[in-house]
Every structure is written in C-alpha cells, then in structure tokens.
C-alpha cells in the first residue's frame, strides 16, 4: 500500500453503531468535497473503536507538534531538560536540504510572544505551551533544535507509538516541502499517542497530565470542539496548511470516560468548509457515542 492508500473497512464485522458512523461520515465526506478524510476513534468508556481510512498517510501539518511535545517531555523525563530550562529564542534554522538557513515568518505565527522574545530566552514549558496552544512554529523549531528529530523518533519507538508517525524535519522548511520531504501522520498513529496520554501512560501519570494540560489550552477551537456541548472539554491539536486540515484530541464529557478522536482531511487548495467538515464529523461521533441503547455495540 502506498502512503496515500488505505482500507476503508476493518476485517471485523461492523456493529450497528459502527455501520451508522461509517454511513454518516461517508455522507459528510461526499457533501464536503474533501479529497480524503480519515477518522480514528477510541472510546475509553465503552471500548468502541472506529478506523475510517485510518492508515492513510497525510501531511501532518501542525499535528506533528503532538509527537514533538512527547519528545520534549521524554527529555524532561530523562532529566536532560527541566520544564524551566531556558532556550535561546533565535529565528534561524537550517533546512534538512543542504543545511540552508531559513526563518519562520512572524506573520505566519498567530502568537507574537515568542517572536517578541528574539535574542532573549524562554522556558521549555513556555515554548511547549506556545507550540501547542497557538501552534507557534517558532517555538516548535526552537524545541526541536534543542532535542533533535532523532530523539523524538527514538521516543516514539520506545513508547511503541512510532507506527503512523514520520517526523523528518521542523516546520516551515519550504525547501524540504518543495522536495517532498514532509512530516506525515496517519489517524491511527496520532490516535495511539492520544490514547496513551489520556490513560496517563506517557512516562508517568504526572507528566501525561502536564501534556494534557497543555493540550487543554488549545486556542483554535473551530474543529472537534465547535459543535460539542459547552460541558465538553477538549484537549487537542489542530493542523492546517493549504491542502490539509486536521484536528486530533481527547474529548472529556461529564460522568463518562473520555474518547480520543483524530480527524484528518485533505483538500484542493481552493476548497472551503474544512473546519466545518471536521466539526460535523465530531458532532456526529459525539451524538452516536452518547445516544440511547438502540445503537449499542453487539
């Protein structure tokens, strides 16, 4: 199978709930005009899972920041970094293509806090927070500069969550993008990380909780959380470039265990309605997971 192919159905016979979900997601996909949609779901309350094109590879966009967050906390767990370790804020990075220098454009980061600190230092936990909550590309490349992509990949291997994640470089490396050297993810790959975090199994319950706290601070909420009830809390990370829009997170609802959900979508650059589509899928999943017993798994 190539990086963009996948199987739409699982080998096991689908339950009524799974059939209903697949049907509704297919309907949303058809109406949206998306080139591809993948969904991976794990409900810790019921054990229900859905894998819809979940092994199809997508450009990771900013969802790659979740594995990088894991790599940063691995360095903290090993004692190589402390949350308050200081990092020089410098906007100069080397492309994986011939080590050619590049900068992160300030206008492409929604957060000016990190750019405003150029020349000074910021703490590792501050950078991690900005990397996730406002998706700061500068913070991401700074952290990756300290720990290195190889270290992140080794962490993923050690935690057995490397399948479905390919971290090759920092973000905004345009030369690499032009050469087709990109960070790639599958819905299943991201789901494995989220489930591990939600279950407190990444390094330690305390460190897992700290990562979840950062993901709870997410400020871009037009995807998975948009059509959920106000009582829902979502720890998540979005990712969007011209051809993809993603959201990956853990949904906490009152009086039940959380569910982890990854929605990856691919589009023509001119397409609209990307986040609306993610929100619609999220709403559909929420309704099917929380409705009455008639669609309970067999």
């Amino acid at each position, binding site marked *: 199978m190539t990086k963009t192919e996948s199987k739409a159905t699982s080998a096991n016979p689908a339950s009524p709930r799974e059939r209903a979900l697949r049907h509704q997601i297919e309907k949303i996909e058809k109406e949206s005009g998306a080139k591809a949609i993948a969904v991976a779901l794990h409900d810790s309350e019921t054990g229900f899972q859905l894998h819809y094109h979940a092994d199809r590879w997508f450009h990771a966009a900013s969802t790659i920041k979740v594995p990088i967050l894991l790599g940063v906390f691995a360095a903290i767990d090993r004692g190589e970094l402390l949350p308050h370790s200081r*990092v*020089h*804020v*410098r906007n*100069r990075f080397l492309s994986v293509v011939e080590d050619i*220098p590049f900068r992160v454009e300030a206008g492409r980061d929604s957060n000016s806090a990190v750019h405003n600190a*150029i*020349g*000074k*230092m910021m703490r590792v936990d501050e950078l991690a927070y900005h990397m996730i909550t406002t998706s700061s590309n500068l913070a991401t490349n700074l952290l990756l500069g300290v720990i290195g992509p190889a270290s992140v990949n080794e962490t993923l291997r050690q935690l057995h969550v490397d399948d479905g994640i390919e971290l090759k470089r920092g973000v905004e490396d345009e030369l690499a993008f032009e050469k087709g050297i990109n960070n790639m993810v599958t819905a299943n790959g991201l789901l494995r990380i989220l489930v591990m975090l939600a279950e407190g199994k990444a390094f330690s319950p305390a460190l897992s909780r700290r990562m979840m706290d950062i993901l709870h601070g997410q400020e871009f909420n037009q995807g998975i959380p948009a059509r959920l009830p106000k009582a829902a809390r979502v720890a998540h990370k979005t990712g969007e470039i011209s051809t993809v829009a993603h959201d990956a997170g853990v949904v906490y609802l009152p009086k039940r265990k959380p569910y982890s959900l990854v929605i990856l979508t691919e589009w023509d650059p001119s397409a609209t309605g990307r986040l609306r589509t993610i929100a619609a899928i999220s709403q559909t999943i929420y309704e099917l997971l929380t409705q009455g017993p008639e669609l309970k798994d067999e």
Partner: protein
Amino acid sequence: MTASTRLDETERVNESPNFPLRVVDGLTLPPEYRKALRPGEDWMDANSFPRQLPRYFYEIPSWDTAMKIELASHFLLWEFIQVDVREAPPLRTFPRYVPCAITLLAVCLERFREAVGTLVHISANGGYRSPSHRFSKNATPHAWGTAANIYRIGDTYLDNRNAIERFSLIARETLPGIWTRPYGAPTGYAEDHLHLDLGYVLSVPRDVKS
C-alpha cells in the same frame, strides 16, 4: 610622606574596592568545572591554530550579584552570562565563572554604546559561553569572554544586511582592533546579529599570585 604610607596606598589600589568579585585560578576548581572550562588548555580555532583558553576567572556567587555589578556604566554583569540549556550543566548554576577579560569587553561595548547613542542588547548565548557549550565548535572568543553577539541596538533588530553592516562599520571605526563577523549565511558569517570580538585576549589580574 613616609615609605609605609606609600606602601599602604599601593595595597589599596590593588584591592579594587569597587569590584567585589573574587578571582579564582581555574586549575584549582572542582573537576566538573575544570572539565567544562578547560582552564589554560589549548583549543584549535577554525584554521587549526592552537589558542590558549583563559585560566583566571571571576567567581559570580549568585544571579542577584550578577544583576547588581556594573562592568561599565551601561552594562551589568548579567548581560554577559546569559546561556541557555546548551551550556554545560555545572556552568548553568551558581557559582558561575567568567574569564577576567570580560571587563575589557564591557569597556569596549560602553564606547560602542556611546557611538551609537542608544541601548545595545547582547543576545542569549552571545556573551561568555564556555568551550563546552554546544554552540562552541572551534575556539571562539566567546569562551575567552571577549566576544559579544548583539541582536538589537535601540529599536533596530540586527537581522538584515543593512543594519548589521551599518553598525559593524561604527564598531570598527570606534574600537581599534575590533573584529566583526561579515554579513552572510555560511559558517563564519552572521545574518541575525552583529558579532564583535577582541580576539583571544587573556587577562591576568595583578592580585593573581601564580
């Protein structure tokens, strides 16, 4: 004036009453510091010339002290010792050690500040950093305490050719013998700061006995 009076005055001059930092011989420091600072060792520069690293250091007992000590009218000690997680672990906690030549750099920067007429900002990792710092590949004058990376002057960020070359020229006109890194991306050039240095200057204070 008697002979004993003249002797007393000489001793007072050498006491440096306005500079409270203790001078230490790096060779007498604990092993973890010696390993990181490599006092008196030779270190090859980019052209494979051996350069002798500093042996004598000022001991900085605390960040609070660094925040208070003026090396020049507009430069406090803390501005020269900001290093990030890439510095060797023993050198990220206090007491910290900085080569005695740091005072010469501060005087030069003060003159430079007078010439530009506004605030001169030294970047993190851009003052003193040890030979064990992850940025220190070849013998860099940063490890002698005689180099500064300036990322901002007044409201001007030195992240473009025009700004870097303009202030580089002022530095060279103001400070005889100063070296500035040319603008550019390759190794040996700088494109997001102004690097200036005095070279591999070793400073041995008068009260050093050995």
